[in-house]
């Protein structure tokens, strides 16, 4: 897209798992690794806790993107729930594609508690990609154009004007 707004700061909701990726974010902080400040982090116990409803809800309420971060496959604190997260993510992406949402807007990354730098890089990359895409502004998709209220008024007038057969 050519008309990228340089002032656009994406709002990204992040769901980070308690055991790996939230700690990676913590590590990035204590190691003073700089990264884009656009992710609003929500800590969940496991990436497997992230119901796709949360993501749909975030997008419908104005988020420009959603980042899900969990432990690496095989390293889940709850044995295999991150695989569940992975399968849900593929289902979600398949569905969102069909609804016209670009792949970059919902991403899944794996970050161990030691990977502060990798997580910061993933955040920077995602923010840059969404800046290129521009705002999502989902609720604008629901708006009718200005004709709607006029059309409703017209019905009232029409009914008033309509000829009734005199009794």
């Amino acid at each position, binding site marked *: 897209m050519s008309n990228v707004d340089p002032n656009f700061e994406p709002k990204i909701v992040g769901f980070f798992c308690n055991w790996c990726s939230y700690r990676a974010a913590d590590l990035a902080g204590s190691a003073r690794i700089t990264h884009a400040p656009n992710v609003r982090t929500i800590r969940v116990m496991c990436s497997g806790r992230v119901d796709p409803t949360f993501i749909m809800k975030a997008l419908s309420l104005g988020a420009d993107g959603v980042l899900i971060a969990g432990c690496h496959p095989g390293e889940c604190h709850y044995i295999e729930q991150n695989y569940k997260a992975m399968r849900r993510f593929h*289902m979600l992406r398949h569905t969102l594609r069909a609804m016209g949402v670009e792949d970059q807007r919902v991403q899944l990354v794996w970050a161990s508690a030691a990977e502060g730098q990798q997580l910061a890089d993933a955040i920077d990359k995602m923010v840059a990609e969404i800046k290129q895409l521009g705002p999502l502004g989902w609720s604008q998709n629901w708006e009718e154009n200005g004709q709607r209220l006029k059309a409703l008024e017209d019905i009232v007038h029409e009914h008033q004007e309509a000829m009734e057969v005199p009794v």
Partner: protein
Amino acid sequence: MSGTNGKGKLAIYWAASCGGCEISILGIDDKILELAKAFDIVFCPCIADGKVSDVEKMADGEIDVCLFNGGIRTSENEYMAQLLRKKSKVLVAFGSCATEGCIPGLGNLHSRQAIFDNAYQESFSTENPDRVRPQTKTPVPEGALHLPLFYETLRTLDQTVKVDYYLPGCPPESPKIWEALQAVIGGKLPPPGTVIGANTTVCDSCPRTRSEKKIKEFKRTWEVIPDETTCLLEQGILCCGIATRGGCGALCPQVNSPCIGCYGPNDDVEDYGARLFSALASVIDSQDPREIEEIIQKGIPDPVGTFYRFSLAGSQLRRSKRVAAS
């Protein structure tokens, strides 16, 4: 009950719907006589003559119960929803269309322009050399002719006006309709906002045998003849029973056909499709991202039509992204 003859006043209206809901009301059979004893049907364009102006002349709240089926597709639908809301004490979103958009709501995958182009130009059986499209106003020598405005996005009834009760289903099953009508007749209404169905899923009333679910491949219904006693989902057939509200009696799986989800989400579920594909994802038997993607791509070619067949308009995203404002 407000009528002078001691009877209540009942209205039945259709907006963007197919008429199947009215048929389902007739499915209560001889109990229709009991209904007629309790209610005067004051407005029902499907079965009785009546004018909108008659409704406009009524006092506010004069109708005791209005069963409103259909989604809000045009300005006329919206006008009628507002009018009937004002004139009715109890407004029931009747059927899947009014509750969550149903099949007409799948139009939300397209723009008004695309829908018109298809309906009035591109479809195989259409011949329209002058490229005529419906206009909201057409001048003729006698004056102006009007058509309602067709909206870009179909909305559900409760996205338009306040709704008291929901009766889901495509169509609602007659026993549930009778149950709801009896509650009204007997003055035993549940708390406002109640969805009249079961507070459980279709699986609960399905007689098939269930065991551990692990799926390597989703099969389309035409690809296999399913075994009649095992859970359809375990056979790889995408059955929506796991996420769908019960109340229908699991009619479809009992005749070897998968549940397609017409009773919508259970209580406390905000997004039917998300709940459904989340559950389906859990039973895919693979941990390899490439294989998972392949299983999904091959087995579910139309994700929105599969997960949101009845609930797109009522889902959290409500529609697909609009490309350019028209």
